C-alpha cells in the first residue's frame, strides 16, 4: 500500500522527462483559427487516457494537438483537458512510456469528452516478459521456447524440449533416442540450425538423435512448414533454430550452474556456464560451457528397460570481438554421447518381432534391474562444430555477414555380435564445411531485405559396414528476400536457387551368375537443382490481432541412404531396398494463421496448413519378402508418391484470475498418400496438451519469488489414420493415452544469491501406455512416473 503513491510519483516524473520540452512551452501559444466561419472558441476537449486492455488510467501521458501546437499531460486520475478550443478538426497525438504512440482524430463542434485508449507496446513487453508473447516478424508461423518455459525442460533431450510447441512431436527409439517431428515430417526434412550453422550429422536415420546439447540454447525457435528460401534445400518440414544468448557486453564475469536429478532412470546432470567481458578491451567477450549427463535403465510402470542408459559429455567455447560497425565470433563445441538401445529390440528376424509383439513385454522384464552400465547394442556419437562468423556494417549500404562452419560427425554403432570384439559394427564419419554470406540492405523506402549465397561441401566415409556408401556432396545456393511494409500490411517475397552435386562410391555385386560374390566399385554421379520460393502477407488489424498468409516451397534431393543403402534393418525387422533413380522431392506449403497476442486475458495462435509434397520419398512394402538365412523379411523399397499433409495447430492461454492461467495446445494432422489413396504411415496422432498454472504474487523482500505451480495433462489420441490398404505395420497403432503432469518452481533468495529450484513430474499416474511414434512400441511400454528436480544457481563474480 505504501509503495503505490511513490510509484505514481515516479511514473509522473518519468513521463515529465519523456515529454519533449518545446511542446510544454508551446502550450501557452494562442490558438489559431480553424477554417470555419462561425467563431466559437470557448470549447473544451477532455477525457481520460486509459490502457486499452485493463482500462486503468494512465498517469502522465502526453497529449499533443499538432494543429495548435499545444500539449498537455494526463493527471493522476488519467484526465486531460484542452480549454479555449475553436470548432474544427483536430488530431490528438498521445504518447506514453511502454505504449504505442497513437493518433485520434476529433471533430469538435461543441465541448467534447473523449477517452483515449492506448495499446501496450509489444516490443517493449517482449523484453519484460519472460515467456509466451512474441512479436511477429514474418507471416509464416514461427514459435519459440525460451526463458522459464525452456528452463523447465532442462535435462531433457533436444527433441523433447520442443514438444512444448503445438505441431511439434517426437519420433523415438526407446527412452534415449528422440528426434523432432514438425507437422509429421522429420529427419532429412527438418533442418536444425545449431548456433547459426546448419547441423549436418547422420540425420537421415530414424534412430539418429540430433547431436546438440540443449544447454547451449537460450532460445529454441521452430519455423513450421517449408522454409527453403532462407535456409536452403531440405527444409521441407520446417526448421529448428537452436540459439545461444548473445555474448556479454558489460564488463565482469558471470555464469550459472545447473544441477538436475531424476527418479526413474536416475538421471544426473550438471551443466555450467562461465562468461565474461574484459573491462580493458570492451569489445572482447568470451564464454565457456559444459554439460555432463548420465542416466541408467529407464523404468516402465512395471519393469526396467534393459540397456537404456545414456552418457553425455559436451562442452563449448565462444570468443567474440564486437564493435558497432564490425565484429567477429569464434565458436567451438563438442557433443559426445553414448546411447543404450533396448536389448530386446535387437532382433534377428520378423518371426522374432512377432514373438515379441505376442509376448507383450521384454523377455527379461522380470529380471532386468537398474544399472548405469551400457552394453551392446549402443551408439557412440561424437559431433564437433567449429564456427567463425564476421559482420561488417557497411556504412549507409547495409550489413554484411559471413559464417563458416566445419563439422565432423563420427557415429559408431555397436550392435550385438556373436564373436567378442571391441570394434563397432558400423562407423560413419561425415565431414561438412558450410559457408554463408548474407548482405542485408538498409531499409529503402518501405523495403527491407537481404541477398546471400551459401555452400555446403561434405564427405562421408565408413568402416566395418558399407550400409551407407562413401559420398561427396557439394551444394551451392543463392537467395534473395524482400519485405515491404507499410502501415499495417507487410508483404514478403523470396527466391532461391540451389545446385547439388553428389558423387557416390559403392561396391556392388556384379551379375551373380557370372562372377559369384565378386564386387566391383561403382561411382554414380548425380546433379540436382531447383528453386525455392516464398510469397507471404501479414496484416495487422490492430487490437493485437494479426493475420498471416504464406505460400512457401522447398525441395530436397534424395539422400545417399535413399539412393544407395541396402540391407536388413535389424531394429525395424525389414529389408530396405534403395532406389538409385529417385528424383527430388518438392514441397509446396500453404499456411493461414491468426495471432491474438499481448492481451491481458486471452492470447492465442491458430495456424491452418496444407503441405503438398510432390515425389515424397517413402518406403513402400514389396509383395515378395526377401529370404535370408535368418528367415523371410518383409521387403520395402524407396518409392515416390505425391502426398499431402494438412493440419491445425492451436495454442492459446486464458488468464482466469490474477496469477491463474489456463494454457492449451492442440495439434491435428491429416496426411494422405495421393498415389495409393491411403493414409501415410507413422504420422503423429492428434494431440491435446492443457495445463493450469498459478503464479504466486511475491512480496518485496521476501525470500521467495517467482513461485508457481502447474498441473496439466497431455492426451494423445489413438492414430486411427494408419494405412489400411497396404499392411505396412506389424502391430496396430496403440491406444490413446492421457498423462498427468505437474510442475512447481520458485526462486530462493539466500542473502543476495538467487537460487532457482523446480520440480517436474511426468506421468504421475504411472499410466501404462505406448506411443505410435516410438519405434520400440513393439517391444516395451513407455516410461512410468518420473520426477525431475532442477536447481539453477546464477553466479556473479
Amino acid at each position: 500500500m505504501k509503495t503505490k503513491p511513490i510509484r505514481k510519483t515516479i511514473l509522473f516524473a518519468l513521463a515529465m522527462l519523456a515529454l519533449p520540452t518545446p511542446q510544454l512551452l508551446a502550450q501557452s501559444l494562442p490558438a489559431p483559427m480553424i477554417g470555419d466561419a462561425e467563431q466559437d472558441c470557448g470549447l473544451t476537449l477532455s477525457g481520460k487516457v486509459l490502457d486499452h486492455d485493463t482500462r486503468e488510467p494512465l498517469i502522465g501521458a502526453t497529449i499533443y494537438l499538432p494543429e495548435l501546437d499545444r500539449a498537455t499531460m494526463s493527471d493522476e486520475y488519467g484526465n486531460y483537458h484542452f480549454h479555449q478550443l475553436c470548432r474544427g478538426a483536430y488530431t490528438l497525438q498521445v504518447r506514453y512510456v511502454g505504449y504505442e504512440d497513437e493518433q485520434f482524430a476529433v471533430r469538435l463542434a461543441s465541448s467534447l469528452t473523449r477517452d483515449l485508449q492506448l495499446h501496450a507496446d509489444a516490443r517493449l513487453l517482449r523484453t519484460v516478459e519472460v515467456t509466451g508473447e512474441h512479436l511477429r516478424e514474418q507471416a509464416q508461423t514461427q514459435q519459440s521456447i525460451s526463458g522459464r518455459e525452456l528452463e523447465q525442460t532442462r535435462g531433457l533431450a533436444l527433441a523433447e524440449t520442443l514438444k512444448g510447441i503445438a505441431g511439434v512431436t517426437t519420433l523415438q527409439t526407446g527412452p534415449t533416442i528422440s528426434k523432432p517431428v514438425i507437422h509429421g515430417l522429420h529427419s532429412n526434412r527438418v533442418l536444425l540450425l545449431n548456433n547459426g550453422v546448419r547441423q549436418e550429422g547422420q540425420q537421415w536415420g530414424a534412430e539418429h538423435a540430433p547431436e546438440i546439447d540443449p544447454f547451449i540454447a537460450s532460445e529454441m525457435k521452430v519455423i513450421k512448414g517449408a522454409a527453403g528460401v532462407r535456409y536452403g534445400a531440405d527444409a521441407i518440414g520446417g526448421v529448428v533454430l537452436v540459439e545461444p544468448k548473445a555474448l556479454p557486453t558489460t564488463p565482469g564475469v558471470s555464469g550459472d550452474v545447473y544441477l538436475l536429478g531424476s527418479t526413474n532412470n536416475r538421471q544426473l546432470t550438471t551443466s555450467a556456464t562461465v562468461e565474461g567481458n574484459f573491462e580493458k578491451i570492451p569489445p572482447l567477450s568470451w564464454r565457456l560451457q559444459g554439460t555432463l549427463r548420465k542416466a541408467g535403465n529407464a523404468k516402465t510402470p512395471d519393469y526396467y528397460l534393459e540397456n537404456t542408459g545414456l552418457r553425455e559429455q559436451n562442452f563449448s567455447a565462444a570468443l567474440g570481438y564486437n564493435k558497432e560497425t564490425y565484429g567477429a565470433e569464434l565458436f567451438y563445441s563438442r557433443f559426445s554421447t553414448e546411447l543404450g538401445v533396448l536389448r530386446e529390440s535387437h532382433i534377428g528376424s520378423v518371426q522374432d518381432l512377432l514373438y515379441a509383439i505376442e509376448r507383450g513385454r521384454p523377455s527379461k522384464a522380470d529380471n532386468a534391474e537398474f544399472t548405469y552400465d551400457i552394453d551392446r547394442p549402443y551408439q557412440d556419437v561424437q559431433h564437433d562444430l567449429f564456427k567463425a562468423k564476421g559482420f561488417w556494417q557497411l556504412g549507409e549500404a547495409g550489413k554484411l555477414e559471413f559464417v563458416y562452419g566445419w563439422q565432423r560427425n563420427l557415429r559408431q554403432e555397436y550392435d550385438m555380435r556373436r564373436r567378442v570384439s571391441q570394434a563397432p559394427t558400423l562407423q560413419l564419419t561425415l565431414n561438412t564445411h558450410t559457408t554463408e554470406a548474407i548482405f542485408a540492405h538498409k531499409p529503402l523506402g518501405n523495403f527491407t531485405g537481404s541477398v546471400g549465397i551459401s555452400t555446403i561441401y561434405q564427405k562421408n566415409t565408413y568402416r566395418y559396414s558399407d550400409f551407407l556408401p562413401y559420398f561427396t556432396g557439394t551444394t551451392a545456393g543463392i537467395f534473395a528476400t524482400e519485405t515491404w511494409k507499410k502501415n499495417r500490411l507487410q508483404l514478403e517475397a523470396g527466391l532461391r536457387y540451389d545446385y547439388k552435386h553428389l558423387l557416390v562410391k559403392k561396391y556392388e555385386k556384379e551379375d551373380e551368375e557370372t562372377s559369384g560374390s565378386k564386387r566391383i566399385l561403382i561411382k554414380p554421379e548425380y546433379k540436382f537443382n531447383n528453386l525455392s520460393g516464398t510469397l507471404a502477407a501479414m496484416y495487422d488489424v490492430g487490437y493485437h490481432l494479426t493475420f498471416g498468409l504464406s505460400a512457401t516451397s522447398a525441395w530436397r534431393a534424395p539422400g545417399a541412404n535413399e539412393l544407395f543403402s541396402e540391407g536388413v534393418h535389424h531394429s525395424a525387422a525389414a529389408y530396405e531396398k534403395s532406389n538409385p533413380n529417385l528424383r527430388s522431392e518438392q514441397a509446396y506449403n500453404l499456411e493461414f494463421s491468426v495471432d491474438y497476442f499481448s492481451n491481458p486475458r486471452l492470447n492465442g495462435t491458430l495456424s491452418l496448413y496444407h503441405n503438398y509434397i510432390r515425389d515424397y520419398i517413402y518406403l513402400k512394402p514389396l509383395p515378395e519378402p526377401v529370404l535370408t538365412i535368418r528367415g523371410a523379411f518383409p521387403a520395402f523399397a524407396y518409392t515416390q508418391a505425391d502426398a499431402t499433409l494438412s493440419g491445425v495447430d492451436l495454442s492459446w492461454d486464458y488468464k482466469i484470475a490474477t496469477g491463474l492461467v489456463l494454457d492449451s495446445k492442440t495439434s491435428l494432422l491429416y496426411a494422405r498418400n495421393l498415389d495409393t489413396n491411403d493414409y501415410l504411415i507413422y504420422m503423429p496422432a492428434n494431440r491435446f496438451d492443457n495445463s493450469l498454472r498459478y503464479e504466486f504474487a511475491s512480496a518485496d523482500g521476501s525470500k521467495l519469488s517467482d513461485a508457481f505451480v502447474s498441473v496439466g495433462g497431455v492426451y494423445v489420441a489413438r492414430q486411427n489414420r494408419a494405412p489400411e490398404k497396404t499392411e505396412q505395420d506389424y502391430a496396430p497403432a496403440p491406444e490413446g493415452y492421457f498423462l498427468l503432469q505437474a510442475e512447481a518452481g520458485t526462486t530462493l533468495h539466500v542473502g543476495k544469491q538467487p537460487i532457482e529450484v523446480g520440480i517436474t513430474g511426468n506421468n504421475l499416474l504411472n499410466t501404462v501406455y505406448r506411443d505410435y511414434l516410438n519405434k520400440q512400441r513393439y517391444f516395451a511400454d513407455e516410461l512410468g512416473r518420473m520426477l525431475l528436480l532442477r536447481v539453477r544457481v546464477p553466479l556473479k563474480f
Partner: protein
Amino acid sequence: MKKLFRPYLTAFLLGALLISTTSCGDDDDPEPIVEEENITSMTLRLEPVATDKGIDPVEATFTAGTTPALNLRSNTQYTATITFNDKIEDEIREEAEDHEIFFEVSEDLVVVQKIIPEDFDSNGRPVGLTTRMVTGNAGGTGDLKITLKHQPDLKNDESDITVGETDVAATFKVTIQ
C-alpha cells in the same frame, strides 16, 4: 568507408566459394568390407543309429531362399548333427549357454529328442547341435523347421523359441520312404 570494405566483401564472397571447391580433391576410394561373421549355410546330417541295417546317411545343406529335401527311411532312429559354414558350430559350442537350436516338425513325421549328453551346455541345457531323430511311417511328408537362437542371459528352463535373436531359420522338406 565504402571503398575500404569493398575488398573485404569480394574477398569473403569468393572465399565462401573457394572453400568448397578446393576441398573437392578427394580421390580415396572405399575398401571392400569383409563380412566376417555371417552364417551363410547350415548342414543337417542324419546318420542311422543302427549301422547294420544298410541305411544310408542323409545330408542336406540349407542356404537362404532354399528348401532342401530330406528323404528319410521310415521308423528309423537317426543321430542328427548340425554344422555351419566356417565351422561356426565350434563358436556355438563355446557359447553353448547362450545358444539353442529349436526343431518344429509334426510328431507323426519326425520326433526330435534333445537327449544327447555331449550336446548339453554347462547348465545341463541342450544346445541342439546333436540330437536323436526318430522317423514315423512311410508316406509322410512335411516341413522340418530348424531355428538357431542366440539367447544371451535368456537361456534357462523356461526359455523357448520365442526369446532371443534368430541367427538361422531353416526349413527342410522331409519325405519318409
